């Protein structure tokens, strides 16, 4: 059952702040990865660009359109992975995904920083895919940056 408290936690100030003033929004002139993802059922969209140098995400930009959850999550994600080694970024992605699936340990992980404000989304199952859109794009972009032979 949804309560007013849950609703206020879903739409708290930090989330609306990222929604209205997204960090790292825009376009990179040169990018090692450029991914466009879309959630066809609801129309949320994101384009994510990474600049990866020596295994570090040296720069990141996103463009997008969609609900406050999808756009705030993407903004928070870019703020966190900018300057981070690719391996750390993937670690953040997997802990955030665990948090979205209700893992309380992940929700307590301080390294997720602003993203922890989205912990309440886990209680709205139909909105989890909104929060994960940016991270799906991140994982795809990391694969693209690694090149076609990576992992073989």
């Amino acid at each position, binding site marked *: 059952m949804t*309560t007013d408290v849950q*609703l206020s936690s879903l739409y708290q100030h930090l989330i609306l702040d990222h929604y*209205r003033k997204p960090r790292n929004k825009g376009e990179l002139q040169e990018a090692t990865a450029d991914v466009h993802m879309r959630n066809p059922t609801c*129309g949320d*969209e994101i384009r994510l660009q990474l600049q990866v140098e020596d295994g570090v995400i040296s720069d990141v930009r996103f463009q997008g359109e969609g*609900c406050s959850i999808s756009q705030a999550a993407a903004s928070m994600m870019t703020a966190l992975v900018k300057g981070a080694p690719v391996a750390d970024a993937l670690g953040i992605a997997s802990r955030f995904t665990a948090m979205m699936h209700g893992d309380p340990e992940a929700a307590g992980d301080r390294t997720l920083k602003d993203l922890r404000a989205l912990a309440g989304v886990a209680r709205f199952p139909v909105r989890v895919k909104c929060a994960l859109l940016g991270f799906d794009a991140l994982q795809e972009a990391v694969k693209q940056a690694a090149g076609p032979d990576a992992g073989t």
Partner: protein
Amino acid sequence: MGNPDRVDALASTAISSPASGQVANPRPDPVPPLDPVPPLDVERLRKDFPALHQEVNGHPLVYLDNAATSQKPVQVLDAIRRYYEADNANVHRGIHELSRRATEAYEGARQRVARFLGVGDPAEIIWTRGTTEGINLVAASWGGANLGPGDEILLSDMEHHSNLVPWQLIARRTGAALRFLDVTDQGTLRLEQVDEILAGGRVRLAALTQVSNALGTMNPIREIADRVHAAGALLLVDGAQGAAHAPVDVHALGADFYAFSGHKLCGPTGIGVLWGRRELLEAMPPYMGGGEMISLVERDMSTWAPLPHTFEAGTPNIAGAIGMAAAVDYLEGVGPAAILAHEQSLVAYALAQLRELPGIRLFGPEEASDRAGVVSFLLGDAHPHDISTILDAEGVAIRAGHHCTQLLMRRYGVAATARASFYLYNTREEVDRLVRSLETVRTLFA
């Protein structure tokens, strides 16, 4: 019903092309002459719908997603249950008693739906899975046999994807081209373009929705039909929204094909009807092959069963057809004209309150009398999904998204809208709940 000023405005655009020689009938209809209809006894009707009586997130459910699908009355649920409990058998095959009963109920349902559409010949009623399958059937079968390079299909920017994508597919296969009527800022079709496009002499078929699922606009189908026919083309009417909300007479409408679904008019999902004029259907090749649709089968060829079975391969959705007939019985018992009047009074009531909300953006015709029971809107910078989540937390179910009308969303420069859609069981108190919950949205997004 009907605003005289608005009618005149439409008429002046309608006769902009004197070459058509048609007398414009600008009513957004065809609703047969309306006797003043008594208001619905909504409190009594609500008792027929078990799903309405529940709490969602601690609040009594307010179901305003009827353009997506309607709730089902016990009369429909009972008809389906009775069939499975007492008469279940395959149709047109067995010589035994249950098969006879099942066949009788199934064919009886066909006759019932024929009457609902004002159709005298039940063989013109083809059972489908829904509107989408009906349109795909016509596009693939009629289109495959009749379209070629240079031919055109006339659509509009307010079509649901189910009345767009099937035509894209057949156009690609045959080399035919698609033409589109624009939509005005007020959410109506730009009727003057009908004559402009028809004047090219290439349109073979127009496929248009009777009622816009995203805006609620009721299109002047009769008027368009006359112009389409004068140009020697055919008209398919997408009745997915139309049949649920107003009386339908396919001949008065001027349709050559009419497709609709059971689930939007109190019937079950997975059943719908395609009606077509007999001479058109008889000239069309089968859409799917299999049992039920054949007469004589040999190794390399077969002959087809007569209408309607030509287009009904395989064991049909027998229970669905019976449920749909029960739904049609129910609707006619309530009175389709009264249902439309009720919806329009709720739309008028909702529009008046919504217009007072700071930050509201409303889509579709200004006058409730030009709409079926649909209100599409945006509120401030809250995304429709956020609006829908907040409303759901207060028990109010609406739809958020592109409503399978991406052309229309692009036309208005938005990715999505929030949509409340009403039906015979909705009340003014429920509209009040909608408006109160939108105040919560404003507070959270302040």
